[in-house]
């Protein structure tokens, strides 16, 4: 909720209006500050506590800040300059969900800033001598004459991760400021620094599991409290899994007025009963939101537009509909349990451990230099198109995606570097930095924003994250028990089977949907004519997927739908942003 934009250089002031209009769903109020060679814009919802009530003006300083700090400040924009100072009262404790721009007129310097975990986004582009920035890509597309070309290397990465990692975006020339970064634009030069780095720092005092569980429990509860902004109508996305159930517990303990929302996939639901059990035990009102493939068909264009970047996980559709239901029920903000897997050791690290143990047993077959490496194993764990490039890509696209090793390079700082000494914490760091901060959080924020909801993910808390990497990894993955320390922290307070059972996952029945109610849209987006027009993918690879046929070595049926959805959401994004210029689309694809 809320957004910023602006530029340093020369541009028509009408462009600022266009940039603010492009995100009209991010608020009902706008504020603008235009001076020679600079412009700042800010859009927000009035009457929401913890939000800046406009652009902060202080002498030669202009500050626009979208989002909130944790703990909250009355006006984040007014508090920002103080918080940017080094030290305990400033950068060392900077936390929350924000993206900000500060113009220092005296020094003629623009400072851009993002929150530690990437809830709020910021993009920038230099065009015809002017440096532009904005919360969303669609705002930058309001710049007259900005070229709309596909960045093939970014698309190549998307096809491996199902989101675009790193500074690239699929719109050539547009870059993303990464989380926990400060960017300074001065004298026509951009300099980016990092104000916070998550790394392993094992604390021997936390080797006692009782002590560690108490600490984690206290920090989790404090993280929830830090994100409560006075009297609000709070919604909670409750899956019935451990993480969201634990957040429900801490919200309840903090005395919050909370209503829970849970997905209902009909006979495909896997955690519905658990959600009901948790809500019953904590006496929280629970609404089930029925979602089927037929519900997604009419919203696909709008979904692609509101996501702003291509996100290929099928959870976005149900999240969109959950947000709609929460808004209809009168909620202002929505809490979730995102981050539990990344912080406390979810299921994703187990395959990595097996792969590491059995690495290099066989001679390489591809000779691309990466086979059997940790990085390659990690890339394969996304189960999209890594390794299928020759089969999926057209020769023309294949020749444009850039050199080998660019995807592995994104992982090396975590899986090989000095940031951790234990294997499990290395994997956690990679998960946290990429999957958590560049995928889970931004997409959840956009799906909440689609309905004017403020998204809060308390487990992505700076103190909590640092504490989790002070714990021995064996307290997180204990034998084969995932998130062990979190289980210890909530045992006795939540139903036993919710705490101790194995993770099931949300289980979006995407294969049934893409081959059933969504099949007309899949055919429209990924049929032969569409693929030939776009020129990226080979029809002979995609067609069997459209017919429901899995790849020969693939054992899981759900991969058919996951791959179709990832390809379809990319094509949807390309239609809305490259072909359509980022304007709100109309009609349906079928």
């Amino acid at each position: 909720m809320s957004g910023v934009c602006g530029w340093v250089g020369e541009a028509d002031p009408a462009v600022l209006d266009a940039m603010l209009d492009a995100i009209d769903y991010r608020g009902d109020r706008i504020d603008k500050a235009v001076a020679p060679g600079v412009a700042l814009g800010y859009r927000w919802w009035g009457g929401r506590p913890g939000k800046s009530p406009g652009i902060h003006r202080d002498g030669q300083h202009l500050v626009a800040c979208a989002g909130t700090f944790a703990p909250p400040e009355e006006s984040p924009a007014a508090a920002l300059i103080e918080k940017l100072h080094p030290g305990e009262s400033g950068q060392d404790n900077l936390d929350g969900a924000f993206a900000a721009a500060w113009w220092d007129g005296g020094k003629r310097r623009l400072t851009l800033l993002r929150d530690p975990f990437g809830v709020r986004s910021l993009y920038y582009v230099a065009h015809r001598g002017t440096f532009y920035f904005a919360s969303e890509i669609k705002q930058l597309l309001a710049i007259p004459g900005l070229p709309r070309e596909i960045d093939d290397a970014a698309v190549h990465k998307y096809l491996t991760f199902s989101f675009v990692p790193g500074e690239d975006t699929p719109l050539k020339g547009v870059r993303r400021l990464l989380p926990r970064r400060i960017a300074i634009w001065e004298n026509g030069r951009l300099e980016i620094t990092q104000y916070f780095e998550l790394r392993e720092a094992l604390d021997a005092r936390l080797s006692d599991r009782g002590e560690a569980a108490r600490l984690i429990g206290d920090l989790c509860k404090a993280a929830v409290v830090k994100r409560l902004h006075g009297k609000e109508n709070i919604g909670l996305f409750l899956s019935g899994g451990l993480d969201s159930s634990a957040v429900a517990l801490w919200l309840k303990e903090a005395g919050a007025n909370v209503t829970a929302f849970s997905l209902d996939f009909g006979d495909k639901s896997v955690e519905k009963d658990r959600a009901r059990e948790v809500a019953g035990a904590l006496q929280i009102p629970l609404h089930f939101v029925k979602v089927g493939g037929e519900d997604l068909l009419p919203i696909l264009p709008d979904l692609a537009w509101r996501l702003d970047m291509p996100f290929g996980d099928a959870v976005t559709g149900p999240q969109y509909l959950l947000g709609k239901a929460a808004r209809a029920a009168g909620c202002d903000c929505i809490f979730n349990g995102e981050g539990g897997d990344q912080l406390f050791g979810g299921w994703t690290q187990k395959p990595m451990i097996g792969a590491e143990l059995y690495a290099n047993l066989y001679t390489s077959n591809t000779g691309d230099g990466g086979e059997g490496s940790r990085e390659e194993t990690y890339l394969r764990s996304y189960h999209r198109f890594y390794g299928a490039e020759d089969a999926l890509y057209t020769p023309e696209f294949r020749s444009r995606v850039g050199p080998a090793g660019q995807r592995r390079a994104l992982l090396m700082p975590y899986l090989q570097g000095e940031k951790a000494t234990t294997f499990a914490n290395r994997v956690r760091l990679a998960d946290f930095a990429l999957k958590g901060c560049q995928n889970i959080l931004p997409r959840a924020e956009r799906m909440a924003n689609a309905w004017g909801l403020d998204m809060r993910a308390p487990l992505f808390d700076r103190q909590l994250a640092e504490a989790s990497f002070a714990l021995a990894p064996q307290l997180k993955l204990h034998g084969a028990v995932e998130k062990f320390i979190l289980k210890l922290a909530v045992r006795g307070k939540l139903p036993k089977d919710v705490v101790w059972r194995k993770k099931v996952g949300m289980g979006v029945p995407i294969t049934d949907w893409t081959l059933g109610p969504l099949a007309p849209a899949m055919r429209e987006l990924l049929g032969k004519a569409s693929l030939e027009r776009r020129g990226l993918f080979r029809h002979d690879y995609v067609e069997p997927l459209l017919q429901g046929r899995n790849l020969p070595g693939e054992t899981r049926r759900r991969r058919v739908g996951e791959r179709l959805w990832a390809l379809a959401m990319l094509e949807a994004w390309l239609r809305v942003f490259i072909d359509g210029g980022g304007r709100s689309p109309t009609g349906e694809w079928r």
Partner: protein
Amino acid sequence: MKCIRCGTDSNYKERTGKKCPKCKGAFAFEPRDGDAFTDPAFQHAIDTVSAKGQLRWGAEHVYYELARRQRVKSGCATVAFVILAVITLIVVLKAGWLAVVPALVAMLIGRHVWRTKKQKFVKLVQKDFDSMLKTWQKAHGQPKGLIVRAMTRGAAAPPPRALESDIADYSFDRAVICDRARTADLLLANNFHFENNCAVLAIDGYPEAQFETVRAMLKRNPRLRVFALHDATPKGCRLANTLATDKTWFAEQKLTVTDVGLRPGQARAFTGLFQPPVGQPVAAGKGISATDAAWLSAQTLELAVIRPEQVLKRLYKALTREEQDDSGGGDGSSSGGDGTTHDRDSFAHEASDVESDSDGFG
């Protein structure tokens, strides 16, 4: 014969020096000189076991694929025999003595069919196949997907990747224990362990460098799910029992072991691909019934007879079916009463699948 490199069809005279007249690429085989298979037939076998290059496979899989082709030929002979017998009958009715010719041919084919029907052991000699594979590699290089160990057993290991100290402190959700190292190779080389969070070991200590570490890790999960994957041999059919009762394995954890291997009841449909028995008559007990003991005393069957894609898919189904049942005794499984259960469905349909798949060769 078609060149597998450029697709040019050539006759024997044109293939001077066993080379393609167009691209000059070498042929591995020359049926006119007595080779049992053509290059396209051998390539087809590789394509089939590798699922068109998508999977990794062992030489033993190509061996059985080619052996299966010889068995398919006997199937063709049966069809020819029936057709000729019908023709003979018609000619006898219409033209009297002219029936002698088709009758003679039908008798000859009938004799061949009878012999091949009686033949239960695999016809392709292992040594001949090994030689064929070498010839193939000489002409066409190392085939894509062939599983080749980075180190051979007993040889000096290459410097292992330095593992962080914590890695052996964790455990797995499942373990598949095989009766032979090559079966473990098939699973590991195709990342079955990665896809299914599953330890893979062979009971006799493979892979050597990881064996004890992984076995110790398995003991850290009191809810570990154990699966036995094996040939239809006495050793294989006793594998689940051994794992459930041996203290060095899972006896002390009191874990139930699910037998997902090939057993005589499933193996019978593979007549013509059997291997000879392993010496002494097999005694019943320790996981082997009297009926199975009788069968195993007369022949055995290797799991490699099943194509890799089917092994992986059916093993995955068995793993997930077992988890859905949870009790280990749901539909399609039966208790062995000794800490083991048998997944009767794991390869139950494999024989018919293979039989119906009579891909053309060459």
